């Protein structure tokens, strides 16, 4: 479902690589640093997500882009143009607000026309453009309604149409699905991505929902206490986290603490007090023997078996302590003799519970040479 940047833009110039350029931006409020020395380059036509918990500075950064906040230091460039000194109403940037912020005293049509009217567009052109936008979001038959006469999903469509009407160079989405219920959310995510891609508009979104970021964005910047922790495509962030924070923020993960025992060119072994056997990594890493590391292993990379695997390493025996049933798969919480608990996914291929593992079963967990990631402790 996620947007595919290569399909959208087969070739990119250097200017397109830095379409939105956030250069060492810091924002302080009365001594509190909300955004701490952030630099980002966002490509033309991509959907870029700022992901992080509340208070991580993602919303402040978005407001700096929109012009509602002025960076304390640093520059923001859009398509090569400095934005810092432009007020919000002079920036070629439009925003879809979390609350949608539809003007309650205006009809759907007037809401969408508002921005165009400010530009002094001739009336027939406004009418045509509004109709085009309402067509795009399939809200033509609601043109005469007031916002309070619309459901949440309909309000969102109008808000989207309004923020796209002026063909902004940059579209900002503030928690775009925040006000929708779960079922509508996944449907609207897909629809929003389709619309944004169809128009080819560059888009920066803010969200605290990792699933939403992974579904919608071409690239994600993971933020924590005002700083960028990692930037990458959704699968890069998921499969190659560069820090324990990144690994734990997105999806669930087993973190096993250990020490590097052998550091060779083409393999590495890690000794951990939690496991009876060595961890074997099938490639070299930049570390040294005796270094303390965290081994991050996603639950779905673990295989659960009844019999002991043949390999001498990358395995552990334990007892199933808890089972979380998700229908398509179950998550086993397996307690190792060392007291450590590991989570492992188990695909429910068989329908009958009697054929599957159950509580207090003794099982073997195993994983491949490249299943996990070694992170600095």
């Amino acid at each position, binding site marked *: 479902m996620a947007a595919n940047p290569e399909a959208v833009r087969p070739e990119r110039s250097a200017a397109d690589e830095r379409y939105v350029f956030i250069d060492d931006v810091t924002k302080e409020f009365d001594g509190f640093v909300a955004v701490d020395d952030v630099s980002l380059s966002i490509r033309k036509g991509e959907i870029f997500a700022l992901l992080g918990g509340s208070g991580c500075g993602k919303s402040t950064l978005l407001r700096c882009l929109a012009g509602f906040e002025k960076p304390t230091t640093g520059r923001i460039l859009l398509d090569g143009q400095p934005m810092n000194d432009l007020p919000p*109403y002079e920036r070629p940037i439009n925003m879809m607000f979390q609350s949608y912020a539809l003007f*309650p005293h205006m009809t759907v049509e007037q809401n969408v026309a508002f921005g165009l009217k400010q530009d002094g567009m001739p009336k027939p052109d406004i009418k045509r453009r509004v109709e085009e936008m309402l067509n795009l979001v399939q809200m033509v038959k609601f043109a005469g309604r*007031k916002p309070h006469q619309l459901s949440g999903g309909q309000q969102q469509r109008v808000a989207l149409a309004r923020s796209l009407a002026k063909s902004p160079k940059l579209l900002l989405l503030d928690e775009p699905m925040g006000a929708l219920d779960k079922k509508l959310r996944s449907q609207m995510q897909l629809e929003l991505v389709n619309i944004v891609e169809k128009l080819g508009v560059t888009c920066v979104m803010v969200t605290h929902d990792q699933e939403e970021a992974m579904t919608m964005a071409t690239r994600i910047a993971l933020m924590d206490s005002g700083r960028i922790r990692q930037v990458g495509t959704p699968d890069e962030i998921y499969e190659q986290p560069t820090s324990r924070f990144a690994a734990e923020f997105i999806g669930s993960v087993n973190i096993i603490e250990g020490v590097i025992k052998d550091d060779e060119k083409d393999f590495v072994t890690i000794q951990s007090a939690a496991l009876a056997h060595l961890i074997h990594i099938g490639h070299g890493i930049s570390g040294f023997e005796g270094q303390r590391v965290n081994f991050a292993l996603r639950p779905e990379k673990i295989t659960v078996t009844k019999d002991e695997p043949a390999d001498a390493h990358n395995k552990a025996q334990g007892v199933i302590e808890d089972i979380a049933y998700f229908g398509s798969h179950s998550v086993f919480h397996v307690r190792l003799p060392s007291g450590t608990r590991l989570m492992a996914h188990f695909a429910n291929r068989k329908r009958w519970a009697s054929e599957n593992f159950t509580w207090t079963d003794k099982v073997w967990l195993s994983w491949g040479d490249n299943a996990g990631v070694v992170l600095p402790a």
Partner: protein
Amino acid sequence: MSSLHRTGLFGKGMLGFGYAFLYLPILILIIFSFNSSRISTVWSGFSFKWYIALFKDDAMLNAAWVSLKVAFASATVSVILATLAAMVLTRFRPFRGRTLFGALITAPLVMPEVVTALSLLLMFTTVSGFFGTSSKGMLSIFLAHVTFTMAFVTVVLSSRLAELDKSLEEAAMDLGANRVKVFFVITLPIIMPALVSGWLLAFTLSLDDVVIASFVSGPSATTLPMKIFSTVRLGPNPKINALASLLVMLVAQAAVIGWYIMQRQEKRRLRDIQLALKEG
């Protein structure tokens, strides 16, 4: 069952007592306004004569006219000033002395009226001495009423502005409207109901103020409450009963109409929401 019934009776009794406590005096007033006798406490027959006498009393009608003019003008100016004050209090970035400004603006709310009245009187006297003109009249009442009603209207408007979703104004700015435009095209229309109720509040306050008006007015201008007060001081007057009954009728009518409009809007709003949910 029987105990429930008794509670019902008791409840009804209390309700009746409450209503009587609130409205019996007004009912008596209305009844006696149709009394043909001059003595207010003795009923001697139904008559419209006090109403007729009232409409022949030029001094009374003049006072009513002065009151309406003052109330209309002071409510209007007070709403304009209060809107500015409320915008400063809720929309400006924190500035030095903002807390003090807020406290000073709303001070007349807690200040005894006599103190407000006296200080205004002193100021008008000083100013007129300075310019060598007579200051006391309709203008001074108007200015005094603006001063004291503004405090109330500011409170109404700043609480409305504080609860107004700021992203509405930001969205308008984001779409290309500058601050002045945002204020007139977005903020003002949305807070219009609060402006209207603020205006009505100021109008009412001005219309029934007697203390401040008595202090600051001169012989050239008398408001209705001042006139009523001075008339009643000489003993009960059936003409005043008639006037009061008219006022009650007016207020009741406005209240009923207001209630009806609000209820109709609420019904329509609920229907719209249900419609939206069904289609959503």
